[in-house]
């Protein structure tokens, strides 16, 4: 049991996070603080929401490109509508309407993929462009800073607050609860429902999944609807953080989220991946981001370091397989000796 844990991808990511933290802490002792944890979590939250959704698509055996555009259409679209009716209440209505838009976008992706048997990557590449285009053309071309009164304080809505000599006053943002809820829900879905097992089964062997009686179209639809919902929540949350609504929210971030999911141990070929791993993958990405700032290394290095890590993580399964093949010869010989 313990050796299985050590060999797991999650453990490796956790180990890198710990080692990296110690190194940063030694260079800059200010890193060791509650504020740092709050900060990294806060930065991770929206990425985690998107990553959980993307995780489902990746396990299914595809890569979704369009979810970033869904965050934009859902949040910016809601905001533009709210401006029209001069809404001054809290963020909850934004979530409600945003999620509805997310569901519609998810259904659109899912329907096109299942009805016309389109590859996920190709189709979502198209819908991404289409949705950003829609957002810019029909909704508005510039970011809007007119927040409703009920939403002004959202960015500082903390569950716990801490005073830090370097960072100042910061806290554990309320959005960590969304991540917690979404994480548990997705984990439960994957582990304890037939739909979740179906997602793994389809990613493992699509033909056999079909033969076994899984409803591939239905499961694909569900995955994309969930992706849409989580994207919408991420979009509204991020807009609340940054106190403006942008028609190009998260543009260009899709591959970074994908990188986190892959770092977290999901296989780009499908069939493999966990919620915990994905969470750690996102945290690691954010930690590297933070670390480079704190240690004074230029920001450009962030991309480089994540790239190198990705190479290592993509190489590990391949190396393990190669080693297994060699070990395979040994076991055959040993069984002959028995």
């Amino acid at each position, binding site marked *: 049991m313990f050796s299985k844990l050590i060999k797991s991808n999650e453990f490796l990511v956790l180990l890198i996070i710990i080692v990296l933290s110690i190194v940063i802490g030694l260079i800059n002792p200010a890193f060791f603080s509650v504020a740092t944890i709050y900060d990294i979590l806060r930065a991770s939250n929206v990425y985690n929401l998107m990553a959980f959704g993307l995780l489902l698509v990746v396990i299914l055996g595809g890569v979704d490109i369009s979810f970033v555009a869904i965050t934009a259409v859902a949040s910016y679209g809601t905001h533009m509508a709210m401006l029209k009716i001069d809404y001054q209440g809290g963020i909850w209505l934004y979530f409600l309407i945003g999620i509805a838009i997310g569901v519609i976008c998810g259904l659109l992706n899912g329907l096109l993929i299942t009805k016309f048997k389109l590859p996920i990557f190709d189709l979502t590449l198209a819908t991404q462009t289409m949705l950003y285009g829609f957002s810019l053309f029909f909704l508005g071309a510039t970011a809007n800073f007119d927040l409703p009164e009920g939403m002004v304080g959202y960015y500082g809505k903390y569950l716990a607050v801490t005073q830090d000599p370097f960072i100042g006053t910061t806290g554990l943002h309320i959005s960590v609860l969304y991540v917690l809820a979404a994480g548990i829900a997705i984990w439960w879905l994957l582990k304890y*429902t*037939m739909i979740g*097992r179906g997602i*793994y089964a389809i990613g*493992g*062997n699509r033909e056999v999944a079909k033969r076994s*009686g899984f409803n591939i179209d239905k499961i694909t639809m569900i995955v994309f609807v969930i992706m849409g919902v989580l994207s919408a929540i991420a979009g509204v949350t991020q807009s609340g953080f940054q106190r403006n609504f942008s028609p190009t929210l998260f543009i260009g971030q899709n591959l970074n989220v994908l990188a986190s999911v892959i770092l977290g141990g999901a296989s780009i070929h499908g069939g493999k991946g966990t919620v915990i791993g994905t969470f750690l993958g996102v945290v690691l990405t954010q930690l590297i981001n933070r670390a480079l700032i704190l240690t004074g290394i230029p920001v450009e290095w962030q991309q480089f370091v994540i790239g190198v890590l990705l190479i290592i993580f993509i190489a590990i399964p391949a190396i393990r397989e190669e080693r297994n093949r060699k070990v395979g010869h040994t076991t055959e*010989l040993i069984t*002959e*000796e028995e």
Partner: protein
Amino acid sequence: MAEELLRVEHISKNFAGVTALDDVSFSIDKGESMCLVGENGSGKSTMIKIISGVYTADEGKITINGNQYKKITPLESMHEGIQVIYQDFGLFPNLTVAENISISELLSTGKKLVNWNQVRELAQSGLDKIGVSIPLDAIAGTLSTADRQLIAITKAILADARLIIMDEPTTALTRREIEALFKIIQDLNEQGIAIIFVSHKLNEVRQISQRTVILRNGKKVLDQDAEKLDIKTIEYQMTGREIDTSSIKYSHPAKTSQPLLKVEKLYLANGFFDLSFELYKNEVLGITGLLGSGRTELALSLFGQLPADSGKIIIDGEEVPIRNIFDATSRGLGYVPEDRIREGLFLPHSITDNIAVSIIDTLTTTASFIDSQAKENLAEEWIEKLNVKTPTGDLPAQSLSGGNQQRLVLAKWLAHNPKILILNGPTVGVDVGSKSEIHELIRSLARKGMGILMISDDIPELMQTCNRILLMRRGKIVNEFIREKTSEEELTQELVAIDINNH
């Protein structure tokens, strides 16, 4: 009188004017095991698909458990207890053993949630039924072929199978695994479960089946108790012609003082130890041994894919280091792998490209572009020489049958004009007719001066093709046989004896 389980009567099926099945009838009783034999294209796969409801017969009817069907749907077929185990075993490589076994059963109950205790109990009960133990938490993709097959059988049993149809079940199994499988099949027969085997391997046909049905060109040509059948009859009925295997004339290898290939004390960690042997011009040297005896590792070492840790490889009297595949090919070595589908061919690419790929650097124009005319000429030449059955070289390699694919792999290496050709399982999965043609090809290559190293555990094949046969066991050469001075019986005994002694 045993109770009848399945009866097919006067089944005919056409595909776009081509007759796949022509008025075929047979029946199978409860607890009976039957072998359905035929060459590629004989209609046996079509028959399976009709019984399992994938295809609908044009004419004829099917009776299962007394229920008559003009056409049967896959679901009806399953409800009648018919389960087909295809060659891919229908497993999810990323899921555990327990889940693979239970998942279909869980799906059929229509439950929305997964109870992991139930999954494990179900899987364990299934494994207990056939009396094997496989760790429930192992990931299916990491298991051996034999274990994956057992999982597939367990799955079928859990689905209340009354008839299990197995498509080429022994293709990738070692001899011992095959024995174990046969034992399980006997147990299933005793429990009243009928089995239909679909197979090429004639030895096994006799060993396991109580009855043999042979199809040829869509017609049933034989339906007999297996006991009364001999291999010759089966071969004759499958191919419709006598295959002459007894009177093979060799030009005895000229024992020149200098061997073409000499191997001295070759060693590979976890592979083989202290291997020394010689291969002469005009000679076919067989290497046999069980899976895991080190025979494949030896081939890979000689070919530079798994370089040996120590020892000498001497070609034409000159010691040559073989560190990688380029070292090997540039010294005149060619290798036809066991798994031709994965290692030997670019399946979606054209036959022409597949033949040309190993010598593509010689097929260039002065401007270093590929000379497509030269490429096509070369391909045409080899398609003709090796009698590859295809209307044109432009078709993808995957459009060919197993035997023709194997010829294509050979062509690819022969175009390279090797001095030494290593063949690993040259006729695995190839039907009888093509098999003897490939054997003849191997012998004629040797006659023309090539040295051939042939790895195989097919004893009749070794006897028909090789001059000498080396027996490997646990990474060592333990015996050498001269073909004229040994017999199939002796070789089989030696090969299997090792196995028995170890248990």
